[in-house]
């Protein structure tokens, strides 16, 4: 393995020499071997045929001797083989197989010498036998034993001289080859040194100087040509590089410009698209909002009472103004305060009830908007903690201000004109609906209420009492009926006139409407008698409530025409269902009976109805 690598690294000259020697030696050796082999084969064949010819000749010459069994003649004939080289011994047998004559080269002519192959110095390589025929009858046979030693010796001599001649010619050929090889390798090594110089110094101006026209000369020309090309290519490359650099910087600048332009175009386009989308969204929102408004309006149209507005308004307000809170404030009866009718959203304004002056919108009678709570003018009714933009819109219907619609947006929201428009539209719808419902309620009130006291009339009382009794029975809760009457009402009329009497009744009515619970019902029963129905109250509480009412009315101070009216008191009779009766009539009768008991007992007091009273009456 090592030697193989070594051979590979040898200079070309040595490689050529070794190759030449190897080829020559192999050629000569194989030629010599082939010569020796073929010659030897030929010699063996020749020897055999020659011996056969000799045997035939001896046989022919010894027919008579054999026929007459003449030993002398046979011996003479056989002795002629002495002239044939290589024959070691020969025997002539008669037809009975007896040896008639013998020949032995080592002891010539001694017919009787014993034949023993072991005793022979020459090895016997060939045996040839030939029958002796006389007149178609075999009369004996000749056997020749021969050695190839002489021929072998001859062959050896020949081969030796061939080898000597080969060695001599090889030596001469080597000398010639050495000279020739130098003429081949010298230009090659010159080329190699040129290439080394080029590769170490990168100097492409070097040229190989070889004036030959063979392959090496062509190679040198090729290398020179290549070096020239490389030199030219280098120069061109350098130039190209410069051009390319300037081209690249030019293109980069152009690309940058194009990019800039593209980006601005893209931005413009995005802006337009965003605007379009916004417009589209706004349109959609607008459409949705107005269909919601229309829907809300439809619902409000079928409401019977202002109270019924609450859920409708809350529902649509949440839908119309998501992410915001607000309230619908309505003037109370006296128009001194505004009260919240509906509140929605997470952040209702802090003040439940406020005066007209607490709202800039109510004060000015027009829309008040605050885009930024930090810088805007905030209504006093608003909480200090308000953080989002808000707006207050006065609700005006038929020329009257009904109240104010307040809307607070989330902090992140913007107060847009479209939103403002929407809120104004909503406020107009609400104001109209509210006005209609208030009108309707007023009309209703006129049919069920007593205009002087503002309490329900007797017809309404009758319906209500029966309904409440049925419910009491169903629920198993108590019901209390209080009958009250103004003490010495006749004296008031007589002393101060009917107007004073009316005033007394009106004031008592107002007081009762404030003093009783919302579920309680107060009615003008007739004259100066008033009936209060209190559902869900037991006997003890009924008494307490009645006593409170007595005290409350006693404390009312009345001014009439500069005079202070004094001595206002009431008497009260209390009946409890089902203890004092389970029908409207029986309960009212029981309460009436208890009232009379109170009157009899000296007025200005409360009397509880009893079963005896019922029976008595």
């Amino acid at each position, binding site marked *: 393995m090592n030697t193989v690598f070594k051979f590979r690294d040898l200079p070309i000259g040595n490689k050529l020499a070794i190759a030449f020697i190897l080829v020559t030696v192999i050629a000569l050796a194989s030629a010599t071997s082939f010569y020796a082999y073929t010659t030897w084969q030929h010699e063996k064949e020749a020897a055999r045929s020659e011996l056969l010819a000799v045997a035939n000749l001896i046989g022919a010459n010894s027919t008579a001797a054999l026929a007459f069994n003449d030993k002398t003649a046979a011996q003479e004939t056989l002795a002629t083989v002495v002239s044939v080289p290589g024959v070691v011994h020969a025997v002539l047998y008669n037809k009975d197989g007896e040896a008639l004559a013998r020949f032995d080269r080592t002891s010539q002519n001694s017919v009787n010498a014993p034949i023993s192959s072991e005793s022979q110095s020459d090895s016997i390589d060939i045996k040839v036998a030939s029958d002796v025929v006389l*007149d178609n009858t075999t009369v004996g046979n000749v056997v020749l034993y021969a050695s190839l030693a002489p021929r072998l010796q001859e062959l050896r001599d020949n081969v030796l001289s061939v080898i000597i001649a080969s060695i001599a010619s090889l030596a001469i050929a080597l000398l010639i080859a050495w000279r020739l090889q130098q003429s081949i390798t010298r230009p090659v090594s010159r080329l190699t040194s040129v290439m080394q110089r080029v590769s170490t110094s990168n100097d492409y101006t070097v040229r190989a100087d070889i004036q030959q026209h063979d392959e090496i000369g062509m190679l040198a020309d090729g290398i020179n040509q290549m070096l020239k090309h490389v030199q030219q290519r280098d120069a061109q490359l350098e130039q190209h590089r410069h051009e390319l650099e300037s081209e690249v910087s030019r293109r980069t600048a152009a690309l940058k410009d194009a990019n800039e332009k593209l980006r601005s175009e893209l931005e413009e386009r995005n802006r337009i698209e965003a605007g379009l989308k916004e417009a589209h969204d706004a349109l959609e929102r607008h459409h949705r909002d107005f269909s919601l408004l229309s829907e809300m309006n439809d619902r409000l149209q079928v409401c019977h009472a202002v109270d019924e507005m609450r859920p409708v308004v809350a529902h649509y307000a949440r839908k119309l103004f998501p992410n915001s809170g607000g309230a619908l404030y309505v003037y109370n009866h006296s128009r001194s305060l505004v009260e919240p009718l509906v509140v929605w959203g997470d952040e209702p304004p802090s003040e439940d009830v406020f005066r007209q002056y607490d709202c800039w919108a109510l004060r000015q009678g027009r829309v008040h908007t605050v885009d930024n709570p930090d810088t805007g003018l905030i209504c006093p009714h608003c909480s200090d903690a308000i953080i989002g933009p808000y707006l207050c819109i006065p609700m005006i219907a038929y020329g009257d201000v009904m109240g104010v619609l307040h809307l607070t947006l989330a902090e992140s929201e913007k107060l847009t004109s479209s939103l403002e428009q929407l809120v104004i539209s909503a406020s107009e719808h609400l104001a109209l609906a509210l006005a209609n419902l208030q009108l309707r309620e007023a009309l209703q009130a006129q049919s069920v209420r007593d205009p002087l006291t503002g309490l329900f009339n007797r017809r309404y009382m009758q319906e209500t009492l029966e309904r409440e009794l049925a419910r009491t029975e169903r629920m198993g809760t108590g019901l209390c009926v209080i009958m009250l009457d103004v003490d010495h009402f006749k004296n008031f009329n007589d002393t101060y006139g009917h107007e004073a009497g009316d005033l007394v009744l009106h004031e008592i009515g107002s007081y009762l409407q404030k003093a009783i619970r919302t579920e309680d019902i107060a009615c003008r029963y007739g004259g100066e008698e008033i009936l209060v129905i209190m559902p869900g109250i037991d006997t003890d509480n009924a008494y307490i409530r009645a006593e409170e009412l007595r005290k409350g009315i006693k404390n009312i101070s009345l001014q009439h025409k500069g005079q202070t009216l004094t001595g206002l008191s009431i008497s009260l009779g209390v009946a409890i269902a089902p203890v004092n009766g389970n029908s409207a009539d029986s309960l009212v009768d029981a309460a009436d009976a208890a009232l009379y008991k109170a009157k009899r007992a000296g007025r200005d007091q409360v009397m509880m109805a009893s079963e005896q009273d019922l029976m008595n009456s």
Partner: protein
Amino acid sequence: MNRLLTGIVTFLVTAIAVAAPTEYEVKAAFLYNFAKFTEWPSASSDSSLELCLFGNGPYRKALQSLEGKHVRDQVLSVRVLDTADIPDSCRILYVTAEKTDMLDAIYKSISGHQGLLSVSDIEGFTQSGGIIEFRLIDNKLRFAINLQAARASEIDLSSKLLRLAVAVKE
């Protein structure tokens, strides 16, 4: 038992006969060999080759064994002569030593007889006009040839035969 004895006797007799051929037998074999080394004129190319014996005694039996043997494409036939008058059909004539006294008559009959190979034991046979004469030298059977007589009789003898002869008269 009898058969065994007979076998043994037969074997012994045969062994003795093989081991030592008689003089007559050797001479018969020589006669046969002479025929093989001899060429007769083309005219006498018959299918049979007649061997005539002039003499008596044990030769008859020995020569009878040659009857029917082939010499090239001819078959040997043996004929015993009673007189010295030799018929034309004879190709080989063998005269035993007993007939020495009748030699003149024999010569007379031979001379002018074309295509006859004459052989005899008689001493001086080749000197007087015979072609082959047996001679006993060192107790071995040899022969002499009169080539002149052979040519006169138009008999062609092989040179191989001539080489074996103890004497050749030209």
